[in-house]
């Protein structure tokens, strides 16, 4: 059962990601991306990382993809179809991807990973919350605070960059 689920999720991930980068209609690309994200969340559920999966669904699928769709709607005609990419870029992209896959896979597969033997830690919200805010060993309060500052900065940046300029000659 697990195996079947794994292969299904992986298949969805790979096929949808391929489709996402090759489709000629932009909204479909966004939707394919959404499928990829959902399948990833599924993988997380299989691995017993429920919190992670929930975050993935909420933030990625529910936040980022929505943001992308909004921006598509703001900047494009929905029925606009893309042109084919020119041949240099195609070669560059496919070339680098193939070489990269080959290289990385050979490296990874030639290395034998030893699975850890310690018993699994049950991951639930209490543990996560404690660790996230603790200052002792394995405490993640510093990155937490940094992330919060980063998000603040990103918010301010997005607002400043995207706001409309006031007209210089405003008619009274």
């Amino acid at each position, binding site marked *: 059962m697990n195996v079947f689920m794994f292969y299904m999720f992986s298949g969805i991930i790979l096929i949808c990601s391929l489709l996402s980068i090759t489709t000629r209609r932009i909204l479909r690309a966004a939707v394919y991306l959404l499928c990829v994200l959902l399948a990833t969340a599924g993988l997380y559920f299989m691995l017993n990382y429920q919190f992670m999966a929930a975050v993935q669904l909420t933030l990625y699928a529910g936040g980022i993809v929505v943001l992308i769709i909004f921006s598509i709607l703001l900047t494009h005609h929905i029925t606009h179809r893309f042109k084919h990419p020119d041949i240099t*870029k195609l070669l*560059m*992209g496919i070339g*680098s991807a193939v*070489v*990269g896959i080959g*290289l990385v896979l050979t*490296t990874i597969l030639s290395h034998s990973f030893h699975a850890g033997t310690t018993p699994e830690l049950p991951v639930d919200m209490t543990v996560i919350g404690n660790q996230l805010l603790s200052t002792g060993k394995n405490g993640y309060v510093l990155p937490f605070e940094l992330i919060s500052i980063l998000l603040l900065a990103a918010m301010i940046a997005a607002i400043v960059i995207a706001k409309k300029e006031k007209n210089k000659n405003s008619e009274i």
Partner: protein
Amino acid sequence: MTGYTYTVFIILIPLVMFLVIGLLGMKWKPIVSGILGTIGMGISWTLSLITAGSYFFGVHGTEGFQTIIPFEIKWLQFTETLIIKMGILLDPISVMMLVVVTTISFMVHIYSLGYMKGEGGFARFYAFLSLFTFAMLGLVIATNIFQMYIFWELVGVSSFLLIGFYYQKPSAVAAAKKAFIVTRFADLGFLIGILILSFVTGTFDFAKLTQPGTTIFASAASMSFMGISAMTWAMTLMFIGGAGKSAMFPLHIWLPDAMEGPTPVSALIHAATMVVAGVFLVARMFPVIHFQAPATQELIAYVGGFTSLFAAVIAITQYDIKRILAFSTLSQLGYMMLSLGVSGYGGEEGLGYMASMFHLFTHAMFKALLFLGAGSIIHAVHSNLMQDMGGLRKYLPITHITFLIACLAISGIPPFAGFFSKDEILVAALEHNKLLFAVEYIVAGLTAFYMFRLYFGVFWGKDQHYHHTPHESPMTMAIPLMFLAFMSIISGFLPFHNLITSDKMGFETHTDLMVAIPSVLIGVVGIAMAWILYKKESVVPAKLAKSWGILYTATYNKFYFDEFYLFVTRKIIFNYISRPIAWFDRHIIDAFMVGIGLTTEKISYQIKGMQSGQLQHYAFAFVAGTLALALSMIYLLM
């Protein structure tokens, strides 16, 4: 000996004057530079006389005059054995030359105060005069061949600067170039000769080379090239260098043209000092030439003899007074070279050597006097040509008398100086080679003839109408004339046979009446012929010239040697050698350099295209670079 270290000032004072006048001359009134230069030269002159007095007439041993080196420094050291030194060498001929050079230079300095007055570039003139004197003095006191070569070149440069003094005249510029190129070409031979000589003997020093009984030439006997021994090659090449400077045939072409320079320059350089550098070189190397390369000595004698005949014949037909004097110088230089060529070594045998040096001394005096007198005439008449002159004895009395004394001296009339020195040369030639004696005898007659042709043509001859009356020269110009006339009279009586000989020991000599009387006779004959033809205005000379026809024209045009040389350089060297080389330089070497630049530009243009501004290109480069690094790290280096 008393310390001779003060001799270093003799040569340093002109150098300092050159630097001072050259750098600061523009700030003062011109006359200040003139006075400064003259005073400096006066001090050098006094020191030279003191040196000569204490060297020749001081206490010395019985083996003759010693070679003294009061001053020597190691200037450049390349290896253990290759050292170039700079120093001062005092031996009979160098001390004599010190006196000659400083005397004539001092006279010229005083004379130029009057002659060059009002000319543009007055300070520059005195700077160059000081530079030239410095170079010439450095040449004569050189301790080794290399120092002599360095100063030799410096003399060439200063003479270039002085001949081309009126640099706005194209003919002066051309003459300066010609002088420099011809002497430079000869100096190539000189340098090769130096190199061969030093290679064979392992030393540059004169003291070692000319020491009697020296063994450094032992290895030279076995070396030869194309059937001629190495030492003969070396000495012949060095003689070629000397022949260039002393304007021997066929390198004589620059001397007549060098008259484009101001007349004091001609007096200093082309009568008395620079042109005798070649003779001085041969005298300096005399033991080497005489013992190691006797064939070269024969060559020297014949070249000298031919040159004197050749120049005398041309001088008969010229009208420009400075050109006549230039050819006369050529002829007398031929005398000096010939005398060295026929000389032996030691005692009575070395008569030719002594006679040559004696003639050098006396010739310097009266030739400088002739040139300065010619300058005085030109200053009065404003023209160089004999056709514009005549009857000047009424207007220029001092010039007249001194010029007459000089003409008598050069014609070999006793008791003036030229008689004694020329007589000795004839005796030496007679003992060695009858043919050369005959040539020199004829040349003596020709000399008297053309000199008196000049004298009568200028001071007697027709009564010329002058636009403005010629006036006698100012005292600054007259005093050197009088002093040099005095020297022309008395220098014949100097006891050269005790002072300057080939082996530095004195010998007894007597006047050989068998030679003296015929030589005076032919001089008188020459004067008489000139008297008949030129004292009064007459048409006989013109008729004679026409009757000689083509021979006359050829002689008048100096046997077309200048045209021949021009033809060779322009048509042959320029077209077949210079033009291809220039083409090669411009189209291959320059093109190569330019090509490197263009290629770099094109390559960089291509590389520049990599910064296309396209985001995806940059991303691709990023990924590709990372992958390449990873590949090389993991697989190629491990």
